[in-house]
């Protein structure tokens, strides 16, 4: 059952010489109990997309098109109290760096309780008791004592556990995790991902996992949407992505990631760099860097074409009859 549906989302930022659209027609869905990974390099628009789900796009940027639907609610149309009631309560968000996203001068227990208080779900002693329970639930030992600690007194992994507890406090249906392990040691990354996965199963939440790391995707996501230059260029079940990537960009990404199994080979980086939004090519945005480009790619904008069961790709190579 579809929980979140993002339809043709466009975000504009004013720029000299006309607005740029770092997110330009992004669509995807997340089902209940499912993990969708949104994958892409820095600057592809994946974090902005996540912020737009809660209307947190930093000004002067703003959503100029498309819709974000959560169940029957159009989140993009909400204002004031109605919007506040969705934030944290229906969509919880885990930020990249818990050191900067936690308030340095509030005890972590109080910060976990904040979501409960903000939504009138608990107050005072009851909120505190629930906060300690949540800290225990995210695997913090000695939660009663840790609740009185300040963020700087905790380790990085512990801080991110707190960040997850905060996001989960008001029992959201959808958890958005924006690069939740990027700021953490490799050894801790797996634990945090395992925790998110386990909580998803227990609570039946949908999870939108935003990452640049295909290694994370492999183990954790049910489906993957690959973003490039403000657009989704390929979406499919995770196994299919690794077995039969349809878009040259995805193939490039996979070729540039070292593999632990199989013969040792050279890594193949993708030539060139991601251009800034003002310089995106008018037709296929990957065309200048694409090793498989042909005439049509520079003249005609590709649409999402079917490339298998539940598999779409924004590439003319997938067009039937080619």
């Amino acid at each position, binding site marked *: 059952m579809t929980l979140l549906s993002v339809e043709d989302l466009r975000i504009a930022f004013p720029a000299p010489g006309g607005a740029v659209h770092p997110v330009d027609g992004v669509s995807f869905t997340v089902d209940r109990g499912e993990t969708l990974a949104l994958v892409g390099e820095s600057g592809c628009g994946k974090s902005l997309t996540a912020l737009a789900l809660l209307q947190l796009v930093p000004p002067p940027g703003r959503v100029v098109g498309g819709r974000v639907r959560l169940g029957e609610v159009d989140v993009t149309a909400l204002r004031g109290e109605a919007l506040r009631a969705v934030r*944290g309560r229906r969509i919880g968000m885990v*930020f990249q760096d818990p050191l900067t996203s936690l308030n340095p*001068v509030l005890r972590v227990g109080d910060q976990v309780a*904040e*979501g409960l208080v903000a*939504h009138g779900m608990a107050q005072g002693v009851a909120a505190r008791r629930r906060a300690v329970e949540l800290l225990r639930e995210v695997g913090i030992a000695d939660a009663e004592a840790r609740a009185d600690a300040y963020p700087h007194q905790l380790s990085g992994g512990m801080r991110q556990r707190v960040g997850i507890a905060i996001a989960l406090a008001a029992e959201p249906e959808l958890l958005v995790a924006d690069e939740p392990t990027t700021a953490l040691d490799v050894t801790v990354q797996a634990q945090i991902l395992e925790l998110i996965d386990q909580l998803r199963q227990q609570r039946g939440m949908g999870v939108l996992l935003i990452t640049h790391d295909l290694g994370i995707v492999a183990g954790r996501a049910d489906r993957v949407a690959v973003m490039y230059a403000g657009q989704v260029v390929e979406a499919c079940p995770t196994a299919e992505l690794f077995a039969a990537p349809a878009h040259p960009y995805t193939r490039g990404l996979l070729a540039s990631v070292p593999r632990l199994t199989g013969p040792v080979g050279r890594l193949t980086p993708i030539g060139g760099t991601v251009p800034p939004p003002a310089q995106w090519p008018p037709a296929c945005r990957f065309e200048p860097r694409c090793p498989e480009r042909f005439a049509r790619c520079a003249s005609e904008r590709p649409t999402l074409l079917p490339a298998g069961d539940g598999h779409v790709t924004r590439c003319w190579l997938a067009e039937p009859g080619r």
Partner: protein
Amino acid sequence: MTRPWRSAGARAALGTLALLALAALVAPLLLPDPAAAPDPLGARLLVPSLAHPLGTDALSRDVLARLAHGTGISLRVGLLAALVAGALGALVGLGAAAAGGLADDLLMRGTDALASIPRAFAVLFAVAAWPGMPLGGFTLLLGITGWMAVARIVAAEGRRMMAGDAVAAARALGAGRRRIILRHLLPNAAGQLIVATALGVGEAMLLEAGLSFLGAGVRPPTPSLGTLLHDGKDALAAAPWLTVAPGLVLTAAVLATNRLGDALRDAFDPRQR
């Protein structure tokens, strides 16, 4: 909350202020009435003695009694004025930071405009416009002319927080503007607010002394450190104790409040623990 007080400077500052405040509190019980002049003409400008430890002034009043009483008044004026300034500065600064955009610009440019008026001039002008201004009015006046520096400092810290992930995370949790100001901006700006307010105490005390010295502040016969300096200036050569004693007390009080601000910040900032 204990570590900052281990510093000798912080303890000296706290001790100095406690001593001055205590003196101001118990003086009325032990010392003669500061206004009393039993022999208005016969005991003028007496040299310090056992009966009058700091001598007497030109109107035969006991200088120690007047100094103790005046210290209390100056401390009170400085403290209340700084608290008014701190509260106004926090309100404007945090309000501007939380509102952001055009409202922030308007509020802060207005603050800059007000800050460009010399404070002493503004107070002198108001005193001239209201000849019988009571002490409370004068204190309030010092407060409402002194909040701009606080507002700027607090707004800068507030803006930094607003741009950070912590506020984004709070908003993502459904926190409203009031909650963001009270739970995020204020606690994070508290350290700077305390330091700025403590500095404001010393500043207000110096301004009070300066204006009272000019006869435009605390009104005689009420003693304050400024009026004592004023009273002593005519007898500077004959009776230097009239000016030296209040001058030393003023210096000590201002130094102590400035140092105390740093200690209070350290005490209240959990990051320092």
